[in-house]
């Protein structure tokens, strides 16, 4: 990151190579729109480049990066920029819960959840992140995150016809 802060494009490309795949996967799942996902990833990497000097090397890079990416996902979804922490925004931007049809699968059940439940699940299962890491990325208290994962599971279980689908959070 220090090299990137000095404008080293090769170092930036190396970071892009390391993080691009899962960044785009995450953005695809969060935005549910391939073009919006591309925009979000593009803007996230640009932000990383521009603000690389502000990165604190004493802290892990992933939460910093995914926090930026999720903000960009939110921005492209809403087409407006806000400055409140993403975790708080999840409380407000969630749409009405849409239960899937009877034959939909576990993925459809997940994507039917409100964003505040849906996004933590994407981070947990796509990335295998720990609850602490997810809480850091979403700027949430760990207990709040645990509560959301638990409630999310209950909602998914109901939407899937009462089938228990996984272990407790």
């Amino acid at each position, binding site marked *: 990151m220090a090299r990137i802060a000095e404008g080293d*494009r090769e170092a930036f*490309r190396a970071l*892009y190579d390391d993080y*691009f*795949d899962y960044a*785009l*996967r*995450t953005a*695809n*799942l969060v935005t549910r729109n*391939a073009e919006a996902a*591309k925009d979000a*990833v*593009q*803007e996230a*990497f*640009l932000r990383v*480049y*521009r603000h690389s000097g502000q990165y604190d090397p004493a802290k892990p890079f992933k939460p910093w990066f995914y926090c930026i990416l999720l903000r960009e996902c939110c*921005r492209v979804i809403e087409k*407006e*920029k806000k400055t409140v922490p993403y975790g708080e925004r999840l409380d407000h931007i969630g749409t009405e819960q849409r239960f899937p049809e009877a034959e939909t*699968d*576990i*993925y459809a059940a*997940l994507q039917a959840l409100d964003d505040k439940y849906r996004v933590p*699940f*994407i981070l947990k*299962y*796509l990335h*295998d992140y720990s609850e602490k890491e997810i809480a850091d990325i979403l700027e949430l208290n760990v207990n709040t995150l645990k509560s959301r994962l638990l409630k999310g599971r209950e909602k998914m279980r109901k939407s899937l016809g009462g089938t*228990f*689908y*996984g*272990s407790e959070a």
Partner: protein
Amino acid sequence: MDRKLKERLLEESRQPDGVKEEIWNRIEARLNMENNLTQDVKIDSKGRDAFMRKIKITTGVAAAAVAAAVFFTLPAGTAFMEDVKSWFVPEKKVEVEVEGHKEQTDQELHLDEAGSYAIYYDKERYKLVQQDGKDVITTKEPLPEGYPEVSLTIEQYRDEEPAGLAEKAAEALAERYAKVRGITQVNEPVAGYRISAINGNDARSEVEVVYVTDNGGKGSYMLTLKYFLEAAEGHGARFEQMLKEFRVLEQ
């Protein structure tokens, strides 16, 4: 079931080949554009004077050739305009690189009322209107509320030489923008001076780029591009391409 959910997420988030390089190209184009906007080039007065002499000579020779052709071939007035028009095709296809992709655009010829200059502009996306004696190329469809102005304004200053006008433009930009970067000598998209200014570092931050070029006589043209940072590769790139088609006809 945890494993199944992970498998489904990986399956649903698959991406087509080429996306990685497509996005990287867009990122690089944006960074290059921003570097251009913030590049600070100091020009000493001797260098500037020598450069402007070169521009004047080059432009003067070209303008003299045009003037001679007009003088010897056709009378003045509307016939003159008709003849000037005949030098250019009314429409043509021009390749433009936008956000890393090359695309063909249909461009229409515009000659100003006095027959002083010609330019081709993308008629699919933009319209050309006259405002306060200036020609303004702007979006056909109005932008959503909250977006800064997007336009290319062409304005002639018959009694102001480019060097002086560029300095005035830089001073005027400094009053309205947080960051104004020095006067740069350029050969593209027009030969003359370039000054850029930006208000912030966000997607909708206002950007203004001013080119000042010789009008072939004792005056100048000021060509002002306005857009927002996120549109640098889009509207910005399209305007820059249009300026490559800008031709001074009189003097």
